[in-house]
C-alpha cells in the first residue's frame, strides 16, 4: 500500500534504501546515508552488512548514531577494529561493495566537495573536510550519493574536489588507475540520477511523485539531462514509512537522554 502523507526527505531516504541489496557490504556515511542504510536493513535488505569508519563491522544499531562512533554502533557490531585496520584491510583491501556518501557540492560528473566554499586559502565557508570520503570514493565497488536537490549543491563546477567521482567524465577514472566503478547513483528529494554509461554525465532516470521536470531543472546548477526513459519513483509504502518513522522516533528519544 502506498501513502501520500510523506515528506520529500522521507521519499529520498526510502528511495536510497531501495537501492541497497541484502548481500551488499556498505560503508556508511553519517546523517542521511545512515538513515537510508538502516532503513534498508530493517526492510528490504535484512542481510546487509553495514560498516562505519569508527571500525564497527556488521553493526545493527537500534537507534541512529549522532556521530560516526556512538557506543550503539560498537555494542551491536560483530567486531570493532582499529581505525587504521578499517581503512586498510576492509576498505582499501576491496571488501566493500557500496560506499554511501553525502555532499555539500556535487557536479555533473559526481565529483564531491565537502572541504570549502570559495578558495581554499581564504574560504567563504570552511566545511568539515574529507573524513574517510576520498578513499571511500576510490575503493568501494560503487558509490551512492545522497543530497538535497538545490542549485547551490548541484553546481556546474565544485569549488574543491574532495572526493573524486568521474573527473572530467568518460574513462577518467580508469586513466587514473582506479579499478572501481565510482558513483553509480545519486538520490535526491526530487529524483534519481545515474551517470551516462559512456560520458558519465548525470541524467535523471526516475522522478518522485509530484515533482516536474521543470522543478528538477530549476534546482540544478547546470542544464540537467534526462534519460531516454524516465521512470516514476514509486511512493513510499506504509511499511517503509512506518519503519523509518519508528527509527527516527527511537533515535530522538535516545539522543535526548544523556545518562
Amino acid at each position, binding site marked *: 500500500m502506498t501513502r501520500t502523507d510523506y515528506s520529500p526527505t522521507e521519499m529520498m531516504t526510502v528511495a536510497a534504501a531501495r537501492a541497497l541489496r541484502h548481500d551488499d557490504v556498505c560503508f556508511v556515511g553519517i*546523517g542521511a546515508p545512515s538513515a537510508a542504510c538502516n532503513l534498508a536493513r530493517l526492510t528490504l535488505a535484512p542481510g546487509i552488512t553495514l560498516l562505519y569508519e569508527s571500525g564497527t563491522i556488521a553493526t545493527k544499531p537500534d537507534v541512529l548514531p549522532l556521530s560516526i562512533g556512538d557506543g550503539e554502533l560498537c555494542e551491536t557490531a560483530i567486531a570493532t577494529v582499529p*581505525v587504521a585496520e578499517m581503512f*586498510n584491510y576492509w576498505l*582499501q583491501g576491496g571488501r566493500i561493495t557500496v560506499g554511501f556518501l553525502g555532499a555539500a557540492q556535487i557536479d555533473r560528473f559526481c565529483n564531491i566537495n565537502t572541504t570549502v566554499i570559495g578558495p581554499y586559502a581564504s574560504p*567563504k565557508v570552511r566545511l568539515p573536510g*574529507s573524513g574517510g570520503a576520498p578513499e571511500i570514493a576510490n575503493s568501494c565497488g560503487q558509490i551512492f550519493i545522497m543530497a538535497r536537490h538545490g542549485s547551490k549543491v548541484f553546481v556546474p563546477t565544485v569549488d574543491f574536489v574532495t572526493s573524486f567521482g568521474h573527473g572530467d567524465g568518460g574513462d577518467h577514472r580508469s586513466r587514473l588507475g582506479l579499478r572501481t566503478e565510482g558513483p553509480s547513483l545519486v538520490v535526491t528529494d526530487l529524483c534519481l540520477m545515474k551517470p551516462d554509461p559512456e560520458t558519465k554525465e548525470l541524467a535523471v532516470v526516475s522522478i518522485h511523485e509530484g515533482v516536474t521536470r521543470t522543478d528538477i531543472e530549476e534546482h540544478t546548477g547546470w542544464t540537467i539531462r534526462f534519460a531516454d526513459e524516465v521512470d516514476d519513483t514509486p511512493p513510499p509504502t506504509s511499511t517503509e514509512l512506518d519503519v523509518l518513522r519508528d527509527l527516527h522516533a527511537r533515535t530522538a528519544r535516545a539522543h535526548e537522554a*544523556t545518562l
Partner: protein
Amino acid sequence: MTAFVSLADAIAEHVRDGQTVAMEGFTHLIPFAAGYEVIRQKRRKLTLVRMTPDLIYDQLIGMGCAERLVFSWGGNPGVGSLHRLRDAVEHGWPRPLELTEHSHAAMANAYAAGASGLPFAVLRGYVGSDLVDVNPDIATIRCPFTGERVAAVPALRPDVAIVHAQRADRAGNVLIEGIVGVQKETVLAAHRAIVTVEEIVDDLMAPSHNSVVLPSWTVDAIVEAPGGARPSYAHGYYRRDNAFYKNWDPISRDRDAFRAWMGDNVLGATAATHPAKA
C-alpha cells in the same frame, strides 16, 4: 617509566608551548579533561594533531592555544560546524590557524607509520582529490616492485600524545576497549604519552587476551580523571552526551558566549571539576 600524577602536574611537565600534541579518541574516549587543563595552563603556538578535531579542539583553538591544525574531518558530528575552528580559518580569530589537511585513511596510516618507526606511510588513496594540491605532505610514489602509483604521507611523530582510557592497574598498564580508534598508534608514535583514566584498579580485568593494552613502559604519566572524556563517552562507564554536542552549537557560534562559557566552566574551574552541561 610511568608515573601516577595529577592532571595539572602531567600537563605542566609534559606539554610545552610550540610542541606538536595529539589528543586522540575517535568520537569515543576523547580526553576532554586534559584539553581543559591545557587551556587553563595557557599553552600557546601548539600544533594540534587529531583526526576529528571535535569540541575539544574547537575549544583549544577558540582559546588561542593553536598555531596549526593537522586533521582530516573538522565538524561537530551530526550537528554541523565547529564554529571556533571556522572562525579561526575564515577570520583569523583569535589568531590565524594554519591547516595541514588529510583524509582519515592517511592520518591513521601516518600514526601507524610513526608507531612503526617508519619515515612515511603508503596508502591507496587521494586519487583525483584536490587535497594533493593544498597539502605538500601528500606525495605520489611508485611501487618499486610493480610500478603502481600509491600515495605517501610522512609519519606522524607527535611530541606528546594524550589519550583517555577506561582504566589502568597499579603497575601502570592501560586498558582501552570499545571503539579503539587510533589511540594505540598515537601513543606508540609519540615521544611522550599522557593517559587519563576513569579509574585505577588492582586488576585490569582485560576482557580478552586480545584486548588493547598499553604496557606501563609506553606511558609517561597516568592521571586518574573520572568522567574525563565527557561529553564524549567511556564505553562501560557512561554514554555519549549527545545533548551537550547539540547545545555546543549556539555557544560556539558566538565569540562572547564562547568566552563566557569557557570562563565559567573551564578557566574558573580546577582539574577536579569537569563541566557537566553545555
